């Protein structure tokens, strides 16, 4: 902390600081903290209804016989989704980044193209891929037809989750590519020259120079991807709807239980808040474990 304050009175600084912070506290931080409190009530989406403390009843409901099947299914889908997106997206992104880091013509253009979906938003992306995979007349249908088969695609519970994963990776890989490219470009060229003098093969250069020096980018990308994909549901919502067992994930369940109208306006939003808490704990624990592992690995390399 620099002790000298040069602008005379500190009160102006404090006033402007807290004025700026106020809307963030009121509209983001307090609601986030209140989730833990609201999760212990039976608050509803209509105002002026009495609110009761139900303490841990919402959590009991979460694990109750009536709900556990739905919730375990959502948990399973969340893990499949997050695991597949994280692994596949990072491997592909790394390959594409290495590819675009070569001296090829037009690499800036290729990078822009891969990054483009990042700004498109889920509704546009959702429509593009619903069109690409519409069951009657589409490139997807044509490919399936080649193999003498047909599919309902996003309407087929056997493959809809995998299609959603595919679209999520298509949409999100640009960010990972850009981060890996930045990491690759930060590796000093001299290291490769030294490796060349030592007669290292391309594979050895990749394994012994590129990979270890890229470790911080891997940590950043994997963490971003895990935290993001464990909580993402907007794309799933636009591609396969709100109450679809095949693609139901935990975050979508929060939205569905709180606002989906499954139980009408009498539905308790306290229960949805309890799912938020469960999800928050899950995301925190998983990202802390993964972060500890990746940081430890960085040190070893």
């Amino acid at each position: 902390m620099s002790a000298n304050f040069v602008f005379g009175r500190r009160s102006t600084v404090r006033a402007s600081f807290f004025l700026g912070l106020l809307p963030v506290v009121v509209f983001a931080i307090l609601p986030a903290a209140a989730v833990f409190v609201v999760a212990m009530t039976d608050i509803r989406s209509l105002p002026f209804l009495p609110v009761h403390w139900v303490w841990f009843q919402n959590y009991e409901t979460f694990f109750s016989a009536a709900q556990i099947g739905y919730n375990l299914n959502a948990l399973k889908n969340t893990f499949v989704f997050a695991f597949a997106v994280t692994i596949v997206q990072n491997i592909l992104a790394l390959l594409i980044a290495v590819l675009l880091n070569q001296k090829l013509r037009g690499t800036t253009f290729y990078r822009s193209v891969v990054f483009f979906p990042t700004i498109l938003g889920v509704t546009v992306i959702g429509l593009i891929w619903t069109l690409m995979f519409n069951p009657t007349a589409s490139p997807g249908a044509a490919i399936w037809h080649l193999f003498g088969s047909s599919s309902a695609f996003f309407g087929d519970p056997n493959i809809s989750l995998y299609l959603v994963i595919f679209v999520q990776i298509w949409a999100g890989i640009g960010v990972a590519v850009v981060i890996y490219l930045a990491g690759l470009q930060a590796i000093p060229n001299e290291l490769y020259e030294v490796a060349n003098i030592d007669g290292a093969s391309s594979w050895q250069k990749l394994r012994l120079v590129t990979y270890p020096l890229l470790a911080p980018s891997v940590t950043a990308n994997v963490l971003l991807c895990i935290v993001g994909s464990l909580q993402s549901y907007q794309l799933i919502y636009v591609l396969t709807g709100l109450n679809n067992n095949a693609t139901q994930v935990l975050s979508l369940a929060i939205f569905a239980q709180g606002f989906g109208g499954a139980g009408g306006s009498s539905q308790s939003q306290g229960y949805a808040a309890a799912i938020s808490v469960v999800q928050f704990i899950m995301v925190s624990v998983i990202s802390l474990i993964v972060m500890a592992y990746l940081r430890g690995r960085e040190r070893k390399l």
Partner: protein
Amino acid sequence: MTTGRILSYFAVAVVMVFYLFPLVFLLNTALKSNAEFFSNPLGVVQHLAIGNFGTAWTRGNFGAYMLNSIVYTAVAASLGTLISLLVGFPVSRGYMKHTKIWYGLFVALLFLPNALVTQFQLILHINLYGSQLGYILIMTAGIGVGPLLVSGYVKSIPVELDEAAALDGVGYLRYVFGFLPSLLKPVLSTVFILQAIGVWNDIILATILLPDQSKSPVTLGLFAFQGTYTSQWSLLAAATIIVALPLMVAYIFLQRYLVASVIGGAVKG
């Protein structure tokens, strides 16, 4: 050309097909009549049906939705950037006491739990349900990585500049609003762009907080349009292009900043 380079170009071509083909197919579909699309979905358009765009534009009411989105995005992202500046700068300089606590708060902003329910309840109880003001306030508060980015960048501005300005009798607020915006231009545009992307692309909070369709942002307008004109693919494709076009144009001009923004945001995050 070596085999390696040929292989590289081949791999790049495969990636490009995955990204460009859906966009080309979208455009091709938008230019066909619905009858032509169903008789020959994959073929190149034979009879241009430019009228799809006009039909989609009027039936989907996209002009009004677009205007809503522009207002929400401009106001929320500007206010969010202003907030990031007001809180990020003094903490970075140590002008506020308890620096560590404030940094902790900035980091915590990235890991908040899903607060859909409580944000909805808050807006409901202060009588802003269905009002654009309530929606804008919620979107403004989603500043995310902004304060961290600003405080990180401020470290590269010599503190002597603050001292020189103060010696010349410049007050704190005049310094923050008159001098800092030009000094911090790169990071402030990054913060603005990141938040603008988030606000423009939101559909969930708009669904929850704005039940009146006339106040929907364009993303939600497109989603509703998809629900109404299911399987009228030419019309849907035209509508999608209408919604995506401003983003494409903005992207062409901003993509260099965008890429820098994402790297900055990710590394801090």
